[in-house]
């Protein structure tokens, strides 16, 4: 088996990354995190009715983002998920690249771990390059972010550049305190639709 590879130690902190991704958001940004850490990170960055938190459906975050982006071409759709969640739905990167939604961006907050189950290594710890996979699929832009300076430029792309945009953002394998948002799926769905569409 391929061993975990020595990579430059990540310096970015996951909660700060999520805060930067959604900073100064208005009603034109729709955000889909993945189950687990990125859902807590997004809740910690500030609850918003246009967040569709996931507590399951592992591998679906990018696909939910795709359906939303196709339905709402004038809004920006940001999927902000984890490496484990993205790895479970890799085929979806091909599906997105074929559709080429101009308003969809995917940020993978990559700690190279399954934080929910005890910080076991994911494939990215063994050198699997999600950015390379997205680039090969045909994303408009795909890059790996390791520093504050790179992050600032990547946030601009993720929020505003013609998509589909992909970024892997390497973060430290911390487990910050849980910030648990609403779990009821019907409530999350209905409040999202009320905020986006008016009376559901």
């Amino acid at each position, binding site marked *: 088996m391929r061993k975990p590879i020595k990579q430059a130690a990540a310096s970015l902190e996951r909660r700060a990354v999520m805060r930067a991704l959604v900073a100064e958001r208005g009603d034109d940004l729709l955000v889909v995190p993945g189950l687990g850490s990125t859902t807590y990170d997004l809740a910690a960055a500030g609850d918003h009715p246009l967040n569709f938190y996931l507590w*399951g*459906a592992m*591998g*679906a975050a990018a696909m939910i983002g*795709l*359906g*939303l982006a*196709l*339905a709402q071409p004038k809004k920006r759709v940001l999927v902000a998920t984890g490496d484990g969640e993205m790895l479970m739905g890799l085929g979806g990167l091909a599906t997105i690249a074929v559709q080429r939604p101009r308003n969809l961006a995917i940020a993978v907050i990559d700690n190279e771990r399954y934080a929910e189950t005890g910080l076991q290594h994911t494939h990215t710890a063994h050198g699997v390059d999600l950015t390379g996979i997205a680039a090969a699929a045909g994303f408009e832009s795909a890059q790996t972010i390791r520093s504050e300076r790179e992050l600032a430029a990547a946030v601009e792309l993720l929020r505003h550049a013609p998509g589909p945009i992909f970024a892997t953002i390497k973060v430290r394998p911390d487990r910050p305190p849980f910030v648990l948002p609403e779990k009821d*799926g019907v409530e999350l769905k209905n409040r999202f639709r009320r905020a986006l569409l008016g009376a559901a």
Partner: protein
Amino acid sequence: MPPKPRPAWPDRIYDVFVRERVRQVVYVPDAGHSRLIGRCQGDPHMKSVVLTTEEEGIGVLAGAWLGGERGALLMQSSGVGNCINMLSLATVCRFPLLMLVTMRGEWGEFNPWQIPMGQGTPPILEEAGVLIYHLTAADAAEETVEAAARIAFNGDRAAAVLISQRVIGAKSFK
């Protein structure tokens, strides 16, 4: 020999999609659905999304509904097995989910590898909380798909129409 007349039932299903304002049609390519897929691809009001695996479609249609659009997921019975965990997204959140499933391993099947999911599809979908509608005759296609679409979109439920090999014709390996 004169060419075989093209079956009309996929056109009747397409008519239901138009009436029900289906805007996103997501699918893994399938011979039984090929005519319907072709009609949807030719409709400027519909977005066709080809998937790498069927479970992706459950996510896409959840996103579509969040964004105010209706959709339909087309697949073969073998694809139902790929969807099982992802169906929890639809059932927990009560997303409308209209699925049209062309059956294999069910009636006159040649390929034994299709039989497990063909036979398993109805009980597995029911266990997962999906309402199922059996379509066994071409002339019932329109009313059956309409019934499933209405209960899905108005009742916020997952509903699957299982289209029998009796309607599609079993795949010939000759």
